[in-house]
């Protein structure tokens, strides 16, 4: 192909660009709609997962309870309580446990800066921070092993506690008083989405080193134990072994489901993940259907426009155009229109997604906007979309020209 023909194709395209602009716009709009739909779907699913992991990562929580079965001559209805030494007892006997932490809590008056509030105050260890996604804001940290062992008077606080006591100021290094004992704030929790919780969101909590907490709460028992396995698939096994071990220690029937209770977030997560997957698949189906509807529109339009040019093809063939020239021209025009429409559709979708992501989310109420305002632009989806639409568009745009170029010119010339 010499350089004259592409120039000729370009000049012909420019003459027809008003007609082509309709197809370009259809491609632009289709691309924008499908990409936005998929971005919102992906974003919702991602936010669900983020919210779900707000409580913690592969976490099993163990609580005490009341026996419901008689055991070795002991009556039913006995209270089973957990104690700090259970941590080492379980850790030493269940090798599948990666991390384990005690947690005690109660309601206390917390004051600072001349303000007084009542909040849940917890005593725990450093490992709790990792298991329960207690990520500190910049310039702070969570409790560490030394804080716990030495019983340091330090505190890690939720961002709402920080806001209630210190306003917009930085609380790190400042003092809060819990039950008349002063603690130095060492870190503030980052804002996070959390859709499952006990005793309210982590934003409203105060965390102290376990032994320091025992100085304000003289009960020896602990409220719950947090366990993280090496392998999430072993969570059921761990649950069984912990129940058996505690049964042996506190003398209850290992089959007694009420003597202790478990909150196995790994098992719950499985259900959650099924829901997320379901949402993604559902939106994927909607995306495919939208794509097909769009593709039908675009391909119809392209087919009609290409068909309309049958006579033009006939004229060109009659004055000596080769078959290749005809097909090349339609191919290049389709390529150009397709690239233009999808390019602008993609750029616009990308910018709309990023613009929406700038919108603030209210972490206090964690309403619907937290799910809607964080769409995720996916290059993968874009590429799949391009391939499917590309095939359809090229078939519809070039097929009539291809067919017309293979018949006798007179047949195309007669087309009205």
């Amino acid at each position, binding site marked *: 192909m010499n350089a004259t023909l592409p120039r000729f194709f370009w000049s*012909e395209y420019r003459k027809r660009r008003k007609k082509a602009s309709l197809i370009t716009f259809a491609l632009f709009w289709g691309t924008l709609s499908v990409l936005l739909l998929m971005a919102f779907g992906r974003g919702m699913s991602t936010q669900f997962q983020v919210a779900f992991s707000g409580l913690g990562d592969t976490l099993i929580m163990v609580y005490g309870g009341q026996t419901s079965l008689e055991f070795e001559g002991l009556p039913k209805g006995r209270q089973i309580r957990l104690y700090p030494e259970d941590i080492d007892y379980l850790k030493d006997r269940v090798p599948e446990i990666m991390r384990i932490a005690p947690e005690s809590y109660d309601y206390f008056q917390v004051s600072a800066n001349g303000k007084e509030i009542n909040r849940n105050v917890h005593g725990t260890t450093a490992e709790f921070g990792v298991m329960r996604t207690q990520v500190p804001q910049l310039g702070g940290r969570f409790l560490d092993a030394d804080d716990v062992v030495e019983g340091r008077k330090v505190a890690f606080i939720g961002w709402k506690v920080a806001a209630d006591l210190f306003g917009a100021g930085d609380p790190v290094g400042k003092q809060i008083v819990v039950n008349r004992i002063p603690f130095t704030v060492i870190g503030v929790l980052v804002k996070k989405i959390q859709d499952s919780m006990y005793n309210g969101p982590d934003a409203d909590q105060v965390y102290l080193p376990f032994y320091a907490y025992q100085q304000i709460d003289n009960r020896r028992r602990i409220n719950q134990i947090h366990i993280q396995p090496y392998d999430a698939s072993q969570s059921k096994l761990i649950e069984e072994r912990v129940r058996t071990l505690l049964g042996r220690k506190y003398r209850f029937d290992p089959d007694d489901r009420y003597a202790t209770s478990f909150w196995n977030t790994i098992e719950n997560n499985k259900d959650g993940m099924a829901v997320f997957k379901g949402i993604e698949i559902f939106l994927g189906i909607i995306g495919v259907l939208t794509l097909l509807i769009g593709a039908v529109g675009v391909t119809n339009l392209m087919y009609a426009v290409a068909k309309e040019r049958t006579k*033009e093809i006939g*004229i*060109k063939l*009659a*004055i*000596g155009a080769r*078959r290749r020239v005809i097909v090349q021209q339609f191919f290049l025009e389709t390529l150009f229109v397709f690239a233009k429409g999808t390019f602008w559709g993609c750029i616009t979708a990308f910018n709309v997604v990023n613009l929406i992501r700038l919108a603030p989310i209210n972490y206090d109420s964690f309403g619907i906007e937290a799910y809607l305002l964080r769409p995720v632009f996916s290059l993968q989806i874009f590429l799949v979309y391009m391939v499917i639409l590309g095939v359809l568009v090229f078939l519809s745009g070039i097929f009539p020209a291809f067919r017309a170029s293979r018949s006798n*010119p007179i047949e195309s*010339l007669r087309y009205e």
Partner: protein
Amino acid sequence: MIELEGITKVYRAGSQSLEALRGISLGIGTGEFVSIMGPSGSGKSTLMNIIGCLDTPTAGEYVLDSDKVAGLTFDQLAAVRNRKIGFVFQNFNLLPYATAWENIELPMLFDGKGGRRRRERVTELLNAVGLYDWRDHRPSELSGGQQQRVALARALANDPPILLADEPTGNLDSKSGQEIMEILVELWKEGRTIVMVTHNDHIAARSGRIIRLFDGQVLS
């Protein structure tokens, strides 16, 4: 130049078939101006399309310039239409979105001729048909006579030895028709082979020979 032997053309539509040409044999020599006449449906245009390589016969042999047309590939036929034959249609068949200049230039583009040669030839042809000042106008902005002159200039772009005209004056007023005929006669005098389909006896009278068709067969 043009030799047809037993040319038959059958159109089929479902179970119906229509025999448009029934074994036509004729020869047209170099430099002849032949008119093909006959009533509607006698197969004039079908014959013309076969001579112009726009259509293929169902049976028979067509030899153009000592080449058997049936043996040519699609692209070889395109080359024949591009260089050997100029076609003028009753309804002009100009590209509606292209200017007079661009329409005339097209056959040369398909022949791969360079920009300078194209410019010179288009200028020459536009002057010859008296439309140089109308070169930037589209077909819709030209009269029927002007459009047919553009179509004639396009047919001559690659200087083909054969010119085929299918009722070239059929859609024109008598004055415009006369002008087109003057040009055709002039081209004949220059040595070109011309085959023209017409209904009009006066117009046919200006050609060198008349072939009459009736019901797909040659009468005389």
